[in-house]
């Protein structure tokens, strides 16, 4: 067998693997999109190639469930978590990266250790604290919990990025008479766009995915987020509403997927940087 044939067979094998994988990947996605357009209600009635398509499940989301409310809640939480977390992370990282002060080393060490604890460990205490502060079943309570949890990892990541920025720029600004705040906003922030985008996007996406704390903090039906609502839709009532769930899933997955794909490069780079720099 000569070289040309060997290569052709190799290519054939590779293409076969790629095609098979592509089918395995697209199938569930396609199936759920079809499910959302399927006339039936249940899982067993859902066909990959339905006889006709319908939008009634999307209508049902609007009229029959609290879906719109959940969507609004999640958007609200995600947005404010993005603002608050990014603010907390960036200010802390800046102080750790650019200033030398007593307690800096201990602070960095403490954050390293803190990010190793499972978020769960403080669950009961957080519950009781929020209860005492009257923030249980309140979106702000949840936002505070998310923001607090994002600090240790985020601050290390952003600090690593800040460390790599040249100091000469700030020194020049300082010579020109710029104060601490001016340097922070006018010199550092514009240079830090990539990492700011990464932190902001991941803090925006975080609340869309979280189930544990949302379930813990938010109690009433009208305060729920999408993750909790959709989970209960397919596990609570014995799968009689599969197609409605499918419609709901499509509406969540599409924007988040697009967001992810748009910022794909930033996300991979950010994670890589985080691993290399600590």
């Amino acid at each position: 067998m000569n070289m040309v044939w060997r290569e052709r067979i190799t290519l054939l094998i590779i293409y076969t693997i790629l095609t098979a994988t592509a089918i395995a990947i697209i199938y569930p996605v396609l199936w759920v999109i079809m499910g959302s357009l399927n006339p039936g209600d249940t899982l067993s009635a859902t066909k990959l190639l339905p006889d006709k398509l319908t939008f009634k499940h999307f209508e049902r989301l609007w009229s029959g469930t609290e879906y719109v409310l959940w969507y609004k809640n999640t958007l609200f939480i995600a947005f404010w978590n993005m603002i608050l977390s990014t603010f907390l992370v960036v200010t802390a990282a800046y102080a750790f990266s650019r200033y030398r002060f007593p307690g800096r080393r201990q602070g960095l060490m403490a954050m390293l250790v803190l990010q190793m604890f499972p978020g769960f460990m403080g669950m009961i205490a957080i519950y009781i604290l929020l209860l005492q502060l009257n923030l249980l079943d309140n979106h702000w309570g949840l936002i505070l919990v998310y923001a607090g949890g994002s600090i240790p990892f985020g601050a290390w990541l952003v600090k690593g990025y800040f460390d790599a920025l040249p100091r000469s720029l700030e020194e020049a600004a300082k010579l020109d008479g710029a104060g601490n705040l001016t340097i922070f906003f006018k010199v550092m922030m514009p240079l830090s766009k990539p990492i700011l985008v990464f932190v902001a996007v991941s803090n925006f996406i975080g609340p869309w995915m979280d189930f544990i704390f949302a379930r813990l903090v938010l109690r009433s039906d009208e305060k729920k987020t999408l993750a909790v609502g959709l989970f209960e839709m397919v596990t609570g009532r014995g799968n009689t509403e599969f197609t409605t769930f499918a419609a709901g899933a499509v509406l969540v997955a599409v924007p988040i997927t697009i967001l992810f794909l748009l910022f794909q490069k930033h996300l991979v780079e950010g994670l890589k940087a985080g691993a290399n720099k600590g």
Partner: protein
Amino acid sequence: MKSKAKVGALLSLLFMGLGQLYHRQFAKGIFLLLLEAYVLIFWSLPFQWAMWGLTTLGETPQIRKAGRIVYPGDHSIFLMIEGIIYLIAFLLFIWIYYLNIRDAYKTGKIRDEGGVPNNIKQTLRNIWENGFPYVMLTPAVLFTAFLTILPLIFGIAIAFTNYSGPNYLPPKNLVDWVGFKSFVDLFQLKTWSRTFYGVFIWTFIWAIISTISIYFVGMLFASLLGHRKIRFKRFWRAIFILPWAVPGFISTLIMRNIFNGEFGPLNKYLQVIGFDPIPWFSDPFWAKMTLFMVNLWLGFPFWMLLMSGVMTSIDKELYEAAEVDGATAWQKFWKIMFPIVVFSTTPLLIMGFAGNFNNFGLIYFLTSGGPVNPDYTYAGSTDILITWLYKLTLEQNKFNIASVVSILIFIVVAALSIYNFRRTRAFREEDMMSQ
């Protein structure tokens, strides 16, 4: 000769601010004096009460007569949290006290050496100039203190109490400190230890296999797509990235339906082509297989993306040199590409292991820990430590055992992370070590 430094320090030790007054720093001295007086007058009784609460966790249980609460009783858990907050505040005060003594000592030293201590204006300017990083840090520190550190201390403290349902739940009952009893129970009491060892071993198996499988499949696809003759690379990559981009909980819930034993499409197809349906979720072995498969589906794109990046950054000359020496494709893979990729991805691989070790979402959404395992207490066949912990906490109120489990999880994850940080450049080059 009497040293002004020592006198100042001694006076400040006696009462905050005295040393500063002795050094004629009146504004600072009076401020410190007032601070200690304020703390002593207004906070010593509450502090004593809080310490009583923290040590005893309450003494009077709730009293009810004919179903009505006559006496509300001590709430052990509130007492504990209050006690911890007071303890932290107390330590903070001790630290300020220490700084006050040190300041008096240092100022005295300046005077001993014939210098003039800073006046109030200079002191304030000094604080303003050097204090900026603290201003920047304050919000983050407050958040971390109340939402991370305090809950953690509390979470650890719970492990040493008997806080659990149905008999030790405030406000109806009191909670007591029991020392290491919950730890001993978990390891030795049959009902707990059997579940613990079973779940613990499965957690490790799960974390190892799931991490390694997605790592190598990711590598495989990165190298397949890296083959120079493959066309439409961007098209293939766009498809393969999909599972990574779709929100994890949604794809997991979709998979839960696809693998559904009775109504799921997979089993229907199997029946159409003449096979028996597979008990994806109702059989322990198949439930575990399903988890591995879905995890593979969800996880490999991330590694594929990452490794594609690493592979393209490998110097082409290495391959050319190998070709000149007559290396086969196989040799080039194992001797050049593989070591480089593994070397640069190990830290992430270890974090990936830690992530899978605590992969709550996948397990809870896909199998919810099921199928039922009659040998286990409050856990199913596919429960890992973290999902068991969740059930113990939110569903069963076994807070003490849950807390012990969470400490064990922490030990495992912390060991991995410390190993990781020690071997990354950051730890050695970071100037935090030399400061």
